């Protein structure tokens, strides 16, 4: 193997892949927490609340994620200097907004699919609205949420690459930096173009992460169906 491979792959794994996983984990957790909450609230029969949550879902699902991330990264600081975020944070916020909109929609469906008797039985046992949902309804609904959540994880992992556009150091960005560095004339680089090998490797890594997860999602869907 040529000499450049080792330092480049070292850099991409330790800096790039780490950034990718960081954004993915934060985004998944954030999307789940906000999404499950909004989706559960969406089942309450109170029009203004439902309309507000609907608007949230339609806006963040409707916008391209790149545009959402641009708004957070460029437009928010222009509106108020307090709203300045690092590229990594801005990307994670964008993915949380988009992901939570997806989760909210699926949660609503899952909560509605739990039979009414479960609500009534829990109410008869003296649970209030919150207790009823936290201890009785959601634990059952979350089981149905599992396959779509695994699919969401795949989508989030792939969409972390959008953070590259605003310069967050994730896997694709670390690849681009490596390509640029190797292209630079010596002594900085080698004056050689290795875009095909490096972007190809990025593609392979994403495939190796995503493929087992897509299989898992399909398997869970079959088993829970």
């Amino acid at each position: 193997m040529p000499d450049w491979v080792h330092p480049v792959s070292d850099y991409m794994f330790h800096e790039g892949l780490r950034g990718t996983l960081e954004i993915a984990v934060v985004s998944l957790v954030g999307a789940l927490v906000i999404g499950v909450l909004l989706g559960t609230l969406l089942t309450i029969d109170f029009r203004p609340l439902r309309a507000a949550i609907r608007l949230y879902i339609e806006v963040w699902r409707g916008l391209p994620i790149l545009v959402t991330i641009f708004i957070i990264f460029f437009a928010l600081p222009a509106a108020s200097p307090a709203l300045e975020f690092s590229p990594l944070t801005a990307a994670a916020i964008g993915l949380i907004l988009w992901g939570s909109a997806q989760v909210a929609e699926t949660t609503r469906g899952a909560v509605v699919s739990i039979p009414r008797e479960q609500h009534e039985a829990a109410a008869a046992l003296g649970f209030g609205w919150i207790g009823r949902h936290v201890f009785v309804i959601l634990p059952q609904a979350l089981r149905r949420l599992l396959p779509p959540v695994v699919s969401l994880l795949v989508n989030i992992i792939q969409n972390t690459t959008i953070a590259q556009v605003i310069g967050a150091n994730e896997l694709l960005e670390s690849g681009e930096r490596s390509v640029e560095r190797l292209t630079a004339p010596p002594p900085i680089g080698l004056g050689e173009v290795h875009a095909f090998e490096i972007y190809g490797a990025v593609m392979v890594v994403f495939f190796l992460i995503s493929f087992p997860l897509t299989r898992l999602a399909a398997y869970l869907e079959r088993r829970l169906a």
Partner: protein
Amino acid sequence: MSVLAFEWGYLVENGDALLHGLYRTIYVSAIAIAGAFVIGLVLGAARAYRIPVVSPVAAVYVEVIRNTPILVQIFMLYFALPEVGIRLDAFTVAWLSVMLWGGAFNTENFRAGFEAVPERYREAAFGLGFGPLGVFLNVALPIGGRIALPSSINTYISVLKNTSLLYVISYPELTTTALQINALTLQTVETFTVLAVIYLVLVWSMSAAIRLLEGHLALPEAR
């Protein structure tokens, strides 16, 4: 620049440029959606009926596209292929990348649609003397195609949204145009408000169109 007051003059000064960008977004999306429709139809049928050679090749294509980020695919086509002697201009990469992506997802949509056509319908058609192609065109396509319709239109909406990623190859569609205007005018709040509103209008009207179309084309039993 006042921060919270929207300066309406922005639209007068930059309206033309934005409309040009919007036109390119719609143009590229239209090519990609038409291509994704054909790919989905042909490869979806090949997958559903396990046509030798074509079906496994289509399966590999679908898995590779679905399990890798579209942004990396765009990078491969535009920044990596020249290294092996294949030079594509920005416009070609623009429609090709989103078309290949949409085609892969649409193959799955149509495969699921065709597989959902009850076997007895096809047997009945064979019994009436239709050949394999006749059965496909007269029975599997009208029924399976309609089952696949909602999910395939969702794919087309995603294709439209994904054209925003063409920003990375500087193809002057809507997002690229808006960012160029932003760099020149520094009217950041105006730029991103307008950009967001245009995308939402596009995406929301497409979703509204689906619902209308769904009502029209839905199978009698689904109504």
